């Protein structure tokens, strides 16, 4: 019952076609949902609408039965770009949301330490944002998002700029956190492997207009082995679905041009 998306459409002013058309999804409390689809199909747009940063042209959204009318700290977002504040150091960036919420100082310090250690940035806590690498920025943003302990976490390709090892590490970390806290997570990714590794259900969006092409439940036991036979089978199944979408899109582009 947690997050209900009912017939969401979005047309940007000035654009010829709909970016999202009639998206409906019901996401249960504590579910881990991955959203995949071709680039430009509206994944970020959908996430922004759920976050309350953008409004749908049509349709309704409910969180635990309450309509979503704007952004709130019950739905923290981790953006595609890091969105850290250059006037604060790593530590203060991580504490930023907790300060807004007025958490007690000790609590802020304890949580910041916990998550900074988890993303292996404790030693860099005094660094300025421009003094750390792109991957470290993304990890700082992850720590900042997790600190708020929101029931819903919206993540927009958070690991796409990271190297393989870091990505793998953070993926398992995220899975652990999810298993511990049972947050509801909506995770946009372009990596089908990542989706199969993390998701309870995978939503494949099609392009132009963006609508739900298919929803695949992933019933593999956790932690998942990315080279196990079952894993590869599911991955293959979803990959071919996504690839059909990408090819369809490429063909349309080709036909038009």
């Amino acid at each position, binding site marked *: 019952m947690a997050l209900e998306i009912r017939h969401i459409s979005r047309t940007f002013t000035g654009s010829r076609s709909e970016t999202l058309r009639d998206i409906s999804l019901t996401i249960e409390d504590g579910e881990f949902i991955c959203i995949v689809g071709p680039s430009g199909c509206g994944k970020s747009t959908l996430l922004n609408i759920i976050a309350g940063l953008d409004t749908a042209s049509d349709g309704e959204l409910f969180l635990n039965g309450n309509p979503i009318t704007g*952004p709130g700290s019950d739905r*923290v977002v981790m*953006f595609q770009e890091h969105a850290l504040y*250059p*006037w604060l150091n790593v530590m203060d960036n991580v504490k930023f*949301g907790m*300060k*807004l919420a007025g958490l007690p100082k000790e609590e802020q310090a304890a949580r910041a330490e916990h998550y900074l250690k988890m993303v292996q940035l404790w030693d860099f806590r005094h660094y300025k*944002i421009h003094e750390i690498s792109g991957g470290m920025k993304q990890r700082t943003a992850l720590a900042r998002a997790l600190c*708020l302990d929101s029931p819903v976490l919206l993540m927009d390709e958070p690991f796409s700029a990271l190297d393989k090892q870091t990505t793998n590490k953070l993926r398992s970390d995220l899975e652990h956190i999810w298993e511990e806290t049972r947050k509801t997570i909506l995770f946009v990714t372009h990596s089908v492997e990542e989706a199969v590794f993390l998701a309870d259900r995978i939503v494949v969006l099609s392009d132009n207009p963006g609508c739900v092409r298919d929803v695949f439940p992933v019933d593999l036991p956790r932690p998942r082995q990315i080279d196990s036979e079952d894993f590869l089978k599911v991955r293959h199944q979803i990959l071919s679905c996504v690839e059909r979408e990408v090819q369809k899109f490429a063909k349309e582009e080709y036909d038009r041009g």
Partner: protein
Amino acid sequence: MQKKNTIAAKLNNLLFYIALILIWQGVYYWGTAIAGLWKPYALPNPLGVVESLKKLAVTGVLFQATAYSLRRALIGFLLSILIGTVLGLVIAASDYFNRNLKPLLTGIQSLPSVCWVPFAILWFGLDESAILFVVVIGSTFSVSLAIENAIRTVPPLYIKAARTMGASHLQLYRDVIFPAALPGFLAGLKQSWSFAWRALMSGEVMSAYVGLGYTLMAGRDIADINQVTAVMLIIILVGILIDRLVFSNLEHRILKQRGLV
């Protein structure tokens, strides 16, 4: 390496100005003593300017005038920052005022500040407050436009991120928009300062109060073109010095702190 380069560049600069002054003096000497093209008092010359500076310094006029002018400029500019910030926040925060008031402010700001002198005299008389009025009106709108521009160019992602973390309206301004807009605002303030300084001179040349503008006109009254030039140089130098020491310095520090330089 870096340091060597800047020293070399500074030396280069210095040589250029020394050459310029030498040429100036040469042309002056040639024009007056050799070719007889103009009278010695018709054009300034470096030695004469130095002589005037010395005279102004010895009598103390130079320091007194500079101090009075600086005091007026700083009081006026602080007032401008206060009023300008409030106005700037209004046009930044409200779409209505942004659409309607901002064009008006931009228009008024394009008016040379000397155009406000008649108003100043009519309202305040030939008074100290008339000069202050010209300074304030000459730079306030520039401050407002600087604030508005700095706030408008804050990356939207900063604001989005804060909103999804539950920032209230007040927190959004205090914790995100103001700090993010600070470098842009300081850059704008530099320009506002130059407006304030120019406006001050417009006000001072028409008044009879101690100040650089008055000393400038006093040079005209005794037909001492070297004194006029000397005071002009001081006006340029003080304007630049304040810019360097206060605004550029602050701006540089903040940009450096954020890794932007």
